[in-house]
C-alpha cells in the first residue's frame, strides 16, 4: 500500500470517527444543527466546483438548493388555494424518489441556464453571475405569488420525513456529505479536474487545444446545480420547510461566504467553512441576530483582505498534497510524433480576404500548405501574418474566398469552431505565450496531448506519454527540470519553450507556429530548428512565422512573403533572399 493510500484511509477513518461521535457529545438540538450543516456543506462543495475550480461565479446558487427542497415539499404536501398546508408526509419511497427528482430537476435547470448563458455570451464571467443574481432575486416574489402551489409567504412546512429519528437522519446526511466530499475530491484530481482548472485560467487557450469549453462549462454547471439540488432536497426532507428565502440572494451570498472563507478551489475548505459558520451562526443567531450578520459580513471582508486564499486553505492544501497528490511526470512515447498519411496538400487557400471591422487585413491570400514541408511566412509587422493563422484556426471568422482542408474527416473549414479544427490536427502556437497560470509544465503537456478528448472524471494520469520530440524541446529550452513549475511563474523564454512543446505534444498534422523563437537564445533556436526538421521528416506540415532571417534560412523548405495582406512572393530561401522587392519591403538596411 502506498503512503498516499495509507494516509487517505487514515484521514478518512478519522473523519468518519469524528462524524460518528458527534451525536454522543451534544444534545438532540445540536445533532439537528449538525445534520442541517451537512446539507449546507454539500451545497458549498458544489459551489466550489462551479466557482472555485471552474471560475464561474454563480451568484444564484441558492436557486438550485431551493429547487431541490421545493420538489420534496411539493411531492409530500397538499396545500389549500390560500397556501395552508392541509396534510403532509409520505412513505420512505416517496421521499427517496422526491430527493432523486429534486436532484435531476435542479441539474436540468442548471444545464438550461448554462446552455443559454455560455455560448451566446462568450467568455465574460459576469454574465452568468448577473443571470444567477437575477434568478435568485426574481424567484422570491414569484414564489409568494403562487400560494396554491408553493404555500406563498409561509412556504411549505411540516413535511419532514418522520420515519427516521434525529440520529438516523444525522447519519444519513453525514454519509451523503462524506460521499459527496470524496466524489468531488476524485473529480478535481482527475484529468477532468485538470481541464476545468485550465478553463478557469485561460478559456481561449483551452479552446485552441481542442477542448469544447462551452460544453464542459455547461456540464460542470449542471453537475454543480444537481449536487446543490440534492443538498436542498435532503434539507427539505430533514427540516421539512421550504419558503421563498431559501431561493434568495441572501442565502446565495451566505454560500459564497462559506466557500470564500473556507478556501476557494480546495473542496475541503468550503465544506469546513459551511459547517463551522452555520453551526456558529445558529448558536449566535438566537441570541444576537443582528450582530451575527454584521460579524459574518466583517469576517468575509477580513478574509478577502487578509487571507484571500481562505482560512482553511493552507490546511486543505496540505491535506490535498498528502492524499491527492500524484505528481505528474513526462515519459517519451516511441514512434513518430504523428501518424502521417494521406494527401500532400493539406490546406489550399484561394483569394482569402478578411477584415477586422473596417480594417482590411487579408486582401486575397493564395497559399498551399503541404505535408512534409516547412513553409516560412515572412513580412513586415502588420502584414497580416498572425491574422492568417487566426482565420485558419477559427472557421467562424467570416472570410471571403476559399479555404479547403484535406485533413481526414475535416474537409470543411467554414463555421467550424476552433476546438473542432484543433481536433483535426491543426495546432497553433500563439505569438504571445498564453498559458494556464496554475497548471504545471507537465500538466500543460498532458492537456495538449489530450487534444480535446473528453478526459476521465475519475482517473488521474500521472505518467504523461508524449512524443520524444516534446522531451527534446523541453530539454533544449530548460523546461525539463521545471516540469512541476506553474505556468504563471515561468520566465518569458520558458513560456515560449512550453508553447512549442505543447504544440508538438498535441501530435499535429499541421503545426502553425507564430514567432516561436522570439525570446529564445541563439543556441536554443538552433536546437528548436533541428527538432522542427525531424517533425517535417515524420511527415507533418509546419507553417512558421519568423523574423529571424538566419533561422528561416536554416529551416525553411519554402518561403512566402506576406505584404499588406497579400502573398507577394513565394520561393526557396535563396530566391526570396535575393529578391529586391523583399529587401525593400521587409529587410531594409542591415542594422
Amino acid at each position, binding site marked *: 500500500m502506498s503512503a498516499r493510500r495509507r494516509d487517505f484511509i487514515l484521514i478518512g477513518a478519522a473523519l468518519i470517527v469524528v462524524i460518528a461521535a458527534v451525536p454522543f457529545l451534544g444534545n438532540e438540538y445540536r445533532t439537528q444543527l449538525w445534520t442541517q450543516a451537512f446539507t449546507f456543506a454539500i451545497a458549498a462543495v458544489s459551489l466550489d466546483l462551479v466557482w472555485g475550480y471552474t471560475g464561474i461565479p454563480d451568484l444564484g446558487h441558492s436557486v438550485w438548493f431551493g429547487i431541490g427542497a421545493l420538489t420534496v415539499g411539493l411531492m409530500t404536501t397538499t396545500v389549500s388555494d390560500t397556501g395552508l398546508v392541509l396534510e403532509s408526509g409520505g412513505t420512505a419511497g416517496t421521499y427517496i424518489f422526491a430527493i432523486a427528482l429534486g436532484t435531476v430537476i435542479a441539474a436540468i435547470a442548471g444545464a438550461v441556464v448554462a446552455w443559454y448563458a455560455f455560448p451566446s455570451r462568450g467568455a465574460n464571467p459576469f454574465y452568468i453571475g448577473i443571470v444567477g443574481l437575477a434568478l435568485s432575486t426574481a424567484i422570491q416574489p414569484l414564489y409568494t405569488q403562487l400560494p396554491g402551489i408553493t404555500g406563498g409567504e409561509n412556504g411549505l412546512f411540516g413535511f419532514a420525513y418522520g420515519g427516521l429519528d434525529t440520529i438516523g437522519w444525522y447519519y444519513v446526511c453525514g454519509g451523503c456529505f462524506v460521499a459527496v466530499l470524496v466524489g468531488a475530491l476524485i473529480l478535481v484530481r482527475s484529468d477532468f479536474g485538470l481541464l476545468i482548472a485550465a478553463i478557469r485560467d485561460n478559456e481561449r487557450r483551452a479552446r485552441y487545444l481542442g477542448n469544447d469549453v462551452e460544453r464542459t462549462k455547461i456540464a460542470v454547471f449542471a453537475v454543480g446545480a444537481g449536487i446543490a439540488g440534492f443538498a436542498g432536497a435532503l434539507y427539505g426532507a430533514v427540516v421539512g420547510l421550504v419558503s421563498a428565502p431559501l431561493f434568495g440572494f441572501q442565502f446565495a451570498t451566505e454560500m459564497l461566504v462559506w466557500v470564500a472563507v473556507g478556501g476557494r478551489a480546495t473542496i475541503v475548505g468550503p465544506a469546513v467553512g459551511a459547517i463551522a459558520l452555520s453551526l456558529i451562526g445558529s448558536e449566535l443567531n438566537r441570541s444576537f441576530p443582528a450582530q451575527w450578520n454584521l460579524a459574518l459580513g466583517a469576517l468575509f471582508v477580513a478574509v478577502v483582505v487578509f487571507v484571500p486564499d481562505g482560512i482553511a486553505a493552507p490546511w486543505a492544501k496540505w491535506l490535498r498534497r498528502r492524499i491527492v497528490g500524484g505528481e505528474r511526470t513526462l515519459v517519451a512515447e516511441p514512434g513518430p510524433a504523428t501518424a502521417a498519411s494521406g494527401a500532400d496538400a493539406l490546406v489550399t487557400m484561394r483569394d482569402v480576404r478578411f477584415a*477586422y471591422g473596417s*480594417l482590411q487585413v487579408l486582401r486575397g491570400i493564395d497559399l498551399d500548405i503541404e505535408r512534409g514541408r516547412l513553409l516560412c511566412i515572412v*513580412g*513586415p*509587422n*502588420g*502584414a*497580416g*501574418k*498572425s*491574422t492568417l493563422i487566426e482565420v485558419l484556426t477559427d472557421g467562424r471568422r467570416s472570410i471571403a474566398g476559399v479555404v479547403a482542408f484535406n485533413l481526414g474527416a475535416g474537409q470543411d473549414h467554414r463555421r467550424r469552431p476552433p476546438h473542432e479544427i484543433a481536433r483535426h490536427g491543426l495546432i497553433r502556437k500563439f*505569438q*504571445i505565450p498564453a498559458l494556464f497560470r496554475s497548471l504545471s509544465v507537465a500538466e500543460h503537456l498532458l492537456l495538449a496531448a489530450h487534444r480535446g478528448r473528453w478526459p476521465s472524471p475519475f482517473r488521474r494520469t500521472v505518467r504523461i506519454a508524449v512524443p520524444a520530440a516534446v522531451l527534446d524541446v523541453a530539454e533544449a*529550452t*530548460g523546461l525539463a527540470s*521545471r516540469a512541476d513549475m506553474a505556468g504563471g*511563474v*515561468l*520566465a*518569458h*523564454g*520558458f513560456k515560449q*519553450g512550453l508553447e512549442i512543446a505543447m504544440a508538438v505534444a498535441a501530435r499535429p498534422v499541421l503545426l502553425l507556429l*507564430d*514567432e516561436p523563437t*522570439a*525570446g*529564445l*537564445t*541563439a*543556441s*536554443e533556436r538552433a536546437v528548436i530548428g533541428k527538432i522542427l526538421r525531424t517533425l517535417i521528416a515524420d511527415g507533418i506540415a509546419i507553417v512558421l512565422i519568423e*523574423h529571424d*532571417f538566419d533561422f528561416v534560412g536554416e529551416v525553411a523548405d519554402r518561403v512566402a512573403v506576406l505584404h499588406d495582406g497579400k502573398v507577394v512572393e513565394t520561393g526557396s530561401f535563396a530566391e526570396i533572399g535575393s529578391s529586391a522587392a523583399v529587401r525593400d519591403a*521587409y*529587410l*531594409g*538596411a*542591415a*542594422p
Partner: protein
Amino acid sequence: MRLSVEKLAARYGSAVVIRDLSLTIGDGEAVAILGRNGMGKSTLLKAILGYVSRDGAVTLDGDDIASWPTARIVRRGIGYGPQEEAIFGELTVAENLAANVTQRHPPPAQMDAVLAHFPVLGRRLRQHAGTLSGGEQKMLVLARVLLGRPKLIILDEISAGLQPAMLATVQRALAVERTERGTTILMVEQNLDLALSLADRVAVMKLGQIVFAAPSAAADMRAQLERHLAP
C-alpha cells in the same frame, strides 16, 4: 540619470530570483543585460521599479528609492517598456501614447518626431491597440516611452517580434534619443547585434547574478558573449 543598485535580492515566494546583485549605470550611459531564460533579467528590471519585493539599495541620482512605490519611482523620469502586458488593448493607439506620467501633453512637434520613426502608428491613431499586430504593439510601447521624454529608459526585449528593418529603426530612434537628450538606457535584450550597437556596456546574468560585464567596444566581444550565453 544615474542608477545604482547594490546588493539587490528579489524573490517570488520562496524562489530567489536575484541574489546579491550590484550594478551602476552612469548618467547618459547605455547598458544591455543579456542572459539565458529564467536567469532573472526581467525580474531585475521589475525589482528596480518596485514591481517585485526586494532587499538592497536602489538609488536614482543618489536618492534612495528602495521604499518608494512604483508610481513615485516612475515619476522621477523613467520610461519603462515591459515585455508582457505592455499596452492597453481596449484603448486606442492615441490614448496609449497619451498614457505617460512623465510628460502628459507632448508638444505636437515632438509627437510628429516620434511618429516619424513609426509611420504605421501615425496611420492607426484611432484604432484599438489590441488589434495591432504583435510587432506594431512593440513599436507602440517604444513610441510611448520616447514620448514621455524620460531621463532613464528601461526596455525589456523590445526587439522581440520586430521585422529586421524595424530593428534598425529602433536602434536609430534610441541613438537619437541618447545624442540629443543624453538619456540613460538600461535594456534587457536577446538580439546581440542590437545590444552591441546601442550599449556602452554589456552584462551577462546567470542565476540571478551578473557573471560578466565589459565595454561593448572591446575586441571580439561578440564571441565572448556567445561563450557566456552558451548552455
